[in-house]
């Protein structure tokens, strides 16, 4: 009996190496469930709340949960970009647009069209149930991994295999931002 076995036999169950791994797995599962609930609750707030400011807050909450889900999908870099771009940029931009151009007292009460209310709920429910049924029933072929998808590999591939797409996306972003400035500025002196 070596020294490690003696130490392990003295410790309570969850402090040994195997026991600690088990506790860590359980903790990861619990955090995942919390983040799943965060995502869904945020989504419900984002699509259901009457006031748009609350909807944007729900959207930010939903995006934080989605970032955690990317983390569970072995992609910490994408999780960080999700926090930076969606929570940090898109939600703030939408909040600015609400402050600039969404006077909520001017919106007429009442339904917004033939699909609002229960019919809209049925439409969305049918789409959701159909997609869940397809996803659960289909058997997807699993291929063996050829690498681990590390951040270093993402950087190398962005600058070698996908450098053309990378540059094109940069140009699309530049043109989009310039175009949005032009559209929003047009007729400002009125």
């Amino acid at each position, binding site marked *: 009996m070596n020294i490690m076995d003696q130490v392990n036999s003295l410790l309570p169950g969850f402090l040994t190496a195997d026991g600690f791994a088990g506790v860590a797995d359980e903790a990861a599962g619990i955090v995942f469930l919390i983040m799943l609930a965060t995502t869904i609750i945020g989504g419900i707030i984002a699509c259901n709340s009457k006031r748009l400011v609350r909807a944007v807050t729900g959207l930010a909450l939903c995006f934080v949960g989605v970032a955690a889900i990317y983390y569970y999908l072995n992609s910490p870099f994408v999780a960080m970009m*999700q926090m930076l771009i969606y929570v940090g940029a898109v939600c703030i931009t939408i909040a600015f647009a609400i402050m600039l151009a969404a006077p909520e007292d001017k919106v007429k009460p009442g339904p917004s069209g033939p699909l609002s209310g229960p019919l809209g709920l049925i439409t969305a429910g049918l789409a959701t149930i159909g997609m869940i049924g397809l996803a659960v029933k289909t058997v997807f072929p699993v291929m063996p991994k050829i690498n681990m*998808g590390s951040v270093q590999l993402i950087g190398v591939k962005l600058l070698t295999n996908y450098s053309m797409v990378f540059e094109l996306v940069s140009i699309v972003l530049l043109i989009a931002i310039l175009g949005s400035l032009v559209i929003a500025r047009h007729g400002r002196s009125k």
Partner: protein
Amino acid sequence: MSLLNLHNDLNTYLVLAAILFGMGIYGLVTRKTLVGMLIASELVLVASSINIMAFNRFTAPDPSIGQIFALFIMAIAAAEAAIGLSITIAVYRNYKSVDIEDIVDLQG
């Protein structure tokens, strides 16, 4: 399959993405303002992104390609949000309203 082991299952992520997609569709058909519809369309985009990342983690041989694709989706989503919001502001300046029922100039 226990509840604490859900994060190792592909179906969890697919079901979550389907739920987010349904919420986005519901928001798109029920919202009365342009900004509300834009918020709902962000939910649809994020649902597609979760789907790609889930298949990337569980079935694809090279997990870095899906992450690169998700990054491109984020860039396109940011561009879409910027243009959509500037159109909203331009519409508000011309019509003094962002209610979709007031913007009917092209209605036949």
